[in-house]
């Protein structure tokens, strides 16, 4: 006689019994212990028929192939640039993937990217030892000039972007800022008006804090409208190429990292309401 002890979208914590009996199936974030299914990380419940899984609310970014991220250069070697990518592991852009331009051998690599530069790039490969290769040669991949950077949790990125970029578009509309959201939780922005730029930052931080509470989109819209004294329309197809690259949360075989590809594991991203 099986029993579900939690509801969809509820926050659960490690060791919490989410279901009793053998009819339910554990998936990401849950496991079976005897007759019960327990949660094994802090997350939001996502029920899919009899399958119980959780969407994480915290935890560091783990790179996956084809992720579009924002990295920061911290070292330049003869073979390429090394970047910090807000993860336990550092990553590298090899010279051949530095730019659409042909980079001759022996060229001064700091002419392309210098220490501390932020670069939008794509994850091309992850080795079994978690060494990460990046490419800055591609549509929408480039150095970011000026601006500033804020960090959010990687699991909140889909909420900051929104369905088809609707959330980030709303923030751009309200504040006039340029915004690029990396899958790794690094958000770059640049605005002409410091007060509006600060509003954009506060809005992004608010989404980071409240993503698990339903009604987020409406709440953020109201917040932006109150702070700016304007009314906003949620745009339908107002997307530039940049955003299409960054909104890379549709799962496909190609998005799996080296190991996940082999283990055939596949975590879905959080769905918008």
């Amino acid at each position, binding site marked *: 006689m099986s029993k579900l002890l939690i509801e969809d979208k509820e926050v659960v*914590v490690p*060791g919490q019994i989410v279901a009793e009996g053998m009819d339910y199936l554990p998936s990401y*974030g849950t496991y079976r212990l005897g007759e019960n299914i327990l949660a094994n*990380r802090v997350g939001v419940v996502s029920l899919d028929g009899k399958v119980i899984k959780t969407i994480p609310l915290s935890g*560091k970014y783990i790179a996956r192939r084809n992720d579009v991220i924002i990295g920061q250069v911290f070292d330049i070697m003869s073979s390429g640039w090394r970047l910090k990518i807000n993860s336990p592991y550092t990553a590298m852009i090899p010279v051949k993937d530095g730019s659409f331009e042909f980079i001759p051998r022996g060229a001064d690599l700091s002419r392309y990217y210098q220490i501390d530069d932020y670069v939008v790039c794509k994850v091309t490969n992850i080795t079994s*030892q*978690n060494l990460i290769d990046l490419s800055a040669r591609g549509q929408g991949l480039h150095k970011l000039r000026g601006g500033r950077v804020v960090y959010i949790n990687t699991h909140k990125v889909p909420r900051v972007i929104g369905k088809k970029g609707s959330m980030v578009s709303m923030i751009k509309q309200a504040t006039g800022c340029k915004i690029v959201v990396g899958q790794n939780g690094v958000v770059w922005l640049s605005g002409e008006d410091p007060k509006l730029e600060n509003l954009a930052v506060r809005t992004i931080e608010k989404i980071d804090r*409240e993503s698990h509470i339903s009604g987020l989109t409406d709440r953020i819209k109201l917040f932006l409208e109150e702070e700016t004294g304007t009314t906003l329309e949620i745009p339908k197809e107002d997307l530039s190429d940049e955003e299409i690259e960054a909104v890379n949360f549709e799962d496909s075989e190609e998005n799996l990292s080296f190991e996940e590809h082999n283990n055939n594991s596949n975590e879905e991203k959080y769905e918008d309401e």
Partner: protein
Amino acid sequence: MKRVDGRTPEDLRPIEAKAGVIKNAEGSGYFKIGKTWAYATVYGPKEIVPRFMMRPDKGILKVNYNMMPFSGQGERVRPGPNRRARELSLVSEKALASVLDLTKFKNSGVEVFIELPQTDAGSRCAGICAASIALADAGFVMKDMVAAVAVGRVKGEVVVDLSYEEEADETDGGAVDTAMAMVPSSEEVTLLQMDGQVTKEELMKAINMGKEACKKIAEIQREAIKNKYAVGDLR
């Protein structure tokens, strides 16, 4: 039988627990039991030094236990690692490692810093409880929380959660102080240390009382994390 502070043998001192209290950390926990008060912060996973310590099959856990200079029951505690702190760091690490799944974080490490601003016995247990909250807060995959409590015997009676005064009691053969940590869902013991003179029967009774206490503590730890996400004041 009433204890010095009026508690029954099974009573825990009042507990206060919170998650996410130190903003800079990846995850953090606060655990106060009676007058013993511990913070735990998690940084990582990250590259660790010395590099030879890293493992190619999974991430490693490193726990650092430290008492703040004004936290001792008597004189000022001189800052810096001493042997006691290093031993407590080691046993705390072993107590927590078994619930963690760090296979996704090979060649990196997770550092936990347990800091105590105020102690009144049971500090290593409070530290482990805070650390468990912090690790969960940081998003790690863990089978369950790890709850810890000191059990033992005072004035001939087997009790749970000894205070400093009880630990120091020398009557009736002296107090027995047993620090234990447990994974509540599997009832597995991950920390066990004891000082005193005690029979096997008394020890088994103490450990079983500790088991019940750990289950209560784990519920409080889980509530602390849930409270962080509660729909409160949405500003």
